[in-house]
């Protein structure tokens, strides 16, 4: 079983990202669950969302405490939230940032593990015209982990966004190209 924790700010679509990953995995005939860090939604406040993906039935209703993958949608979050908390040793941090590797690792408290970085805010502004980074970050997630197939994620985007899907697919594809992996 692979556990994912997403960090974002209210309004950036962390919950939607979590849902899209789970929907893709389920449509790929795997088992998955996605759920928000239940609470009143407040725009701009730090929020979390969780995903589990497994080949077997998932019988777990607790939050994700020891993720295999952490996705951070907002570049300002690592300085106020411990995004690497509980991360497994060979886990991934997938981060929206315009900074270089050294600065990011320092910001993550000397994090030494696997890191994927993309300037998702820039891509989202250029492709979508909005600083909503959730679908862009899915591109970085795809490149780093390959946990679900791109095809299924695209289908999920089409289903969710309708006529806006093309732009979101383009943002995701561009992020896949531009994401840098440091392992």
């Amino acid at each position, binding site marked *: 079983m692979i556990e994912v924790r997403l960090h974002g700010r209210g309004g950036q679509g962390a919950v939607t990202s*979590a*849902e899209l990953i*789970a*929907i893709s995995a*389920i*449509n790929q005939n795997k*088992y*998955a*669950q*996605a*759920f*928000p860090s*239940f*609470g*009143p939604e407040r725009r701009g406040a730090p929020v979390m969302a969780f995903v589990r993906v497994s080949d077997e039935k*998932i*019988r*777990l*209703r*607790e*939050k994700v*405490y020891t993720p295999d993958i952490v996705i951070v949608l907002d570049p300002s979050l690592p300085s106020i939230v411990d995004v690497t908390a509980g991360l497994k040793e060979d886990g991934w941090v997938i981060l929206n940032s315009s900074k270089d590797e050294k600065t990011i690792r320092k910001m993550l408290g000397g994090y030494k593990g696997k890191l994927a970085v993309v300037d998702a805010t820039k891509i989202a502004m250029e492709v979508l015209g909005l600083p909503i980074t959730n679908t862009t970050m899915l591109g970085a997630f795809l490149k780093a982990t390959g946990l679900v197939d791109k095809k299924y994620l695209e289908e999920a985007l089409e289903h969710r966004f309708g006529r806006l899907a093309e732009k979101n697919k383009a943002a995701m594809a561009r992020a896949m190209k531009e994401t840098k992996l440091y392992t």
Partner: protein
Amino acid sequence: MGKRVAKEVSIAIADAVKLARAEVIAAYPITPQTHIVEHLSELVANGELDAEYITVESEHSAISAALGAVATGARTFTSTASQGLALMHEILFIAPALRLPVVMVVANRALSAPISIWNDHSDIMAERDIGWIQLWAENGQEAVDLVIQAFRIAEDRNVMFPTIVNIDGFTLSHVIEPVELPDQEEVDDFLPPFKPKYKLDPRKPLTMGPVGIPEIYFEAKKAQDEAFKNSRRAILRVWKDWAKRFGRVYNPVETYRTEDAEVVLLINGSLAETAMTAIDKMREQGKKVGLMRFRLWRPFPMQEFRKAVSGIPVLAVIDRALTPGGVGGPVATEVRSALYNAARRPRVVNFIAGLGGRDVTVEDFEEMADRAAFYLKKRPKEAYEMIGVRES
């Protein structure tokens, strides 16, 4: 055959209500039930569900309108949570006495104060004695199945009692997971149209809910109690039929790895799934532990429960509600009472956990099982213990 889809459980429940061809929905939105009724109102507005959606000004009105609707012979659904269920309280007793088989999903949530929108079982435990059939779902699939079954159970001529399906707020209601929705034809075949023997009809006037003077009230209540207890047979029949058609088996008391178990945990609702993962882990370590939960909570499945606990040394009941100043949590109190006159009965230990959305983890379940094992040799001193509360 049904189709396996990824759905938020609330949405899947609304789809199940649609598959059941509900004719009237009367509801007032309240977290965490909101997505269920929002989606139903969409389905009605889009013409996908041919039903009357009655928007009301409160839960008191929601249940009142629902009872009026079902009294005219319309298949009726409502849903609520927490304070909303509490506001329905005085009307809830009227439904079973008038034998009005409305179906309600309760997205279980804590009661104020402090204000909490999060999950526990305080809301439904305060409504234990309303005389409704009460069922528990552990996951999205069961929620869908139970909602469809609930209409057939409630409307069965040998039952005619309102029915609640409990689902954990957020912990279940807001989770996206795989669910298999049966086909419309399959549901139509399983669930015939609602045809009550008596209904409100201006062409054939009758009275529902007259005064019960002392000469008749007691007899009316005895008749209600007898009929309620007898609904058990119909419930079992419906589950047998469901298993035959859909291959998914439902029992009044569900057990998991209880064979040869020395300690059995008992918890209702979706956290039973987390408990199963804990049980698997502990079994691998050679610990003799198992799990039990009530699928059917009312009418209380005395026969099945006594059979299920027979030979178990320690039963650890995990309550998700508090009975302030009482002798234990509401489930434990009931369980102890049910076992008092049993020839062989387990030692009953009671834990209170997960109030107001506090996470109950695999580790918490392991701790409870270990603590319960301690009572194999010793009697507990306290009526109950709280798990997961910060002491400093």
